[in-house]
């Protein structure tokens, strides 16, 4: 548990230090726009979305973290790809009775708690493993309802959908436009694992 606390603190410090760094710019490079008026508008939306993703903390959980020379840092080569498929998590250790109720993996993409085990999603537009088949409406509805694809299983902690769901349609649409502008990355994130007591 101590290691988890240290990791969380280190992650927070790393986030605070990141904006403006080379790594941050790589993670949020905005694709070049075509020279049409519509493309300019689209580019403006994408840039707005990039800004929101950068400042709303999406990379906190959706980009795997790694240990760098100065401590934990986002792995910019896997930006917003979610929990790495090749990182198979063992069953989470059982916590003793007490105020500590959740655990986080080293990449900050896997979490265990009273809700079971959750994995951060691949937000790139890969059609099979990411958001490639989603529409903007699906995306907004998911964040407003807290349900996968807007009507499926509950979106699990620590995803802060109750807060993000209060953003305007315009801002959520801009975030979606930015995410769809990313290069698709095939990374099949595991399905969540329900808490043992509910598996009956």
């Amino acid at each position: 548990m101590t290691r988890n606390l240290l990791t969380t603190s280190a992650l927070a410090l790393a986030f605070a230090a990141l904006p403006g760094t080379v790594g941050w710019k790589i993670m949020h490079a905005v694709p070049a726009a075509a020279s049409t008026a519509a493309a300019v508008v689209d580019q403006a939306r994408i840039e707005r979305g990039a800004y929101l993703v950068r400042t709303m903390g999406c990379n906190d959980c959706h980009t795997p973290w790694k240990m760098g020379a100065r401590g934990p840092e986002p792995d910019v080569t896997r930006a917003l790809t979610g929990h790495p498929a090749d990182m198979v998590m063992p069953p989470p250790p059982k916590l003793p009775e007490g105020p500590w109720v959740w655990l986080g993996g080293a990449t900050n993409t896997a979490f265990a708690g009273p809700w079971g085990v959750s994995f951060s999603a691949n937000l790139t537009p890969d059609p099979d493993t990411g958001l490639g088949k989603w529409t903007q409406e699906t995306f907004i509805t998911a964040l407003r309802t807290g349900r996968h694809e807007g009507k499926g299983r509950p979106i699990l902690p620590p995803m802060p959908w109750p807060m993000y769901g209060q953003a305007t349609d315009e801002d959520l649409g801009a975030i979606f436009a930015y995410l769809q502008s990313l290069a698709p990355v095939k990374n099949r994130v595991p399905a969540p694992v329900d808490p043992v007591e509910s598996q009956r």
Partner: protein
Amino acid sequence: MTRGLVCAGVMLLGALTLSATRPAGPVVLASAVDADLAPPARLADTGLYVDGRIGDIDPRVRPFSPQYPLWSDGMTKRRWISLPAGATIDASDEHAWVFPVGTRLWKEFSLDSRRIETRFLWRATASRWVSASYVWNEDGTDAALAPAEGIPGFVEVAPGRRHSIPGRSDCAACHGPADRAQVLGFNALQLSTDRDPAAIHGEPLRPGMLTLRTLEEQRLLVPSRPERVTAPPRVRTNDPVTRTMLGYLSANCGVCHNGNSEIAGFAASLAYRDVVTDGDAVVRSLVGQQTRWQIPGVPEGRSVLLQPGAPEQSAIYVRMKSRSPSSQMAPLGSVLRDEEAVAALARWIDVTRGRTH
């Protein structure tokens, strides 16, 4: 550091909501709800009862009973619809009726004869549907508007299992967004007079209930189609067991898994338009159809929706049997397994090998 604190706070919030059967949160589906379009504060003011007092149902409000009821943890349900005087339903597309502005629908849920909640769906304007739930008091004398976020764990329906009053976002999860919500359970198949005698949890038609026949005879559907009376729709298959299962799956799953939704990874359609067109084709589309959802114990990438002869290797069965939050189907509105339907589904899958042509 602030970000870290916020993140931790969010996680704590998530953990605190876990005892509920659904996530809580200040969800607003419509960006700006006109106050005039807000649901009334009391059920009595929605137009269901005579003189706006809990008691007799207004005779202009008509009861109906879908032949394939949605599973709701075994609760008893009563349903009504009210159309504005002189208004008709646009049935140009027989599988997608368009209801006139002013249409109101109610569904009352009871447990052991005690009324629990009454849900309300109202087409307030051409571009706005209002949805709400009203919660009954202990002695059943009044029902008040539930909070927009619903009431998690409102009543125990079985030891350790509690029914939640849905939030408005839950209404939208099934009925769709407020600007184009869809009415469920009131369509040509559900109201057909060619009722399935083996329908799971099927309810008897009672005097005065609207049916496809009465809608046609009373000219409430436009355009008129005499075949609604002479050849009412049914699940199209020669096998009575398949008919019953597809009816159930269409009512309980087809709302989302309809071929038109954006749900990734579910290629088959259980929409009622498809089961009445060619039920056997629907079955064939399920058999061997890969699903992204991983069936426990099945090799990675090998999970299918329906494996003839093997219920435990059929995702439809495994998820319908589950009541774990992340696995169960349907994903909301139920905390108890539909034992009767699960058993029927297992029997059907067991013998489907010989039915898949």
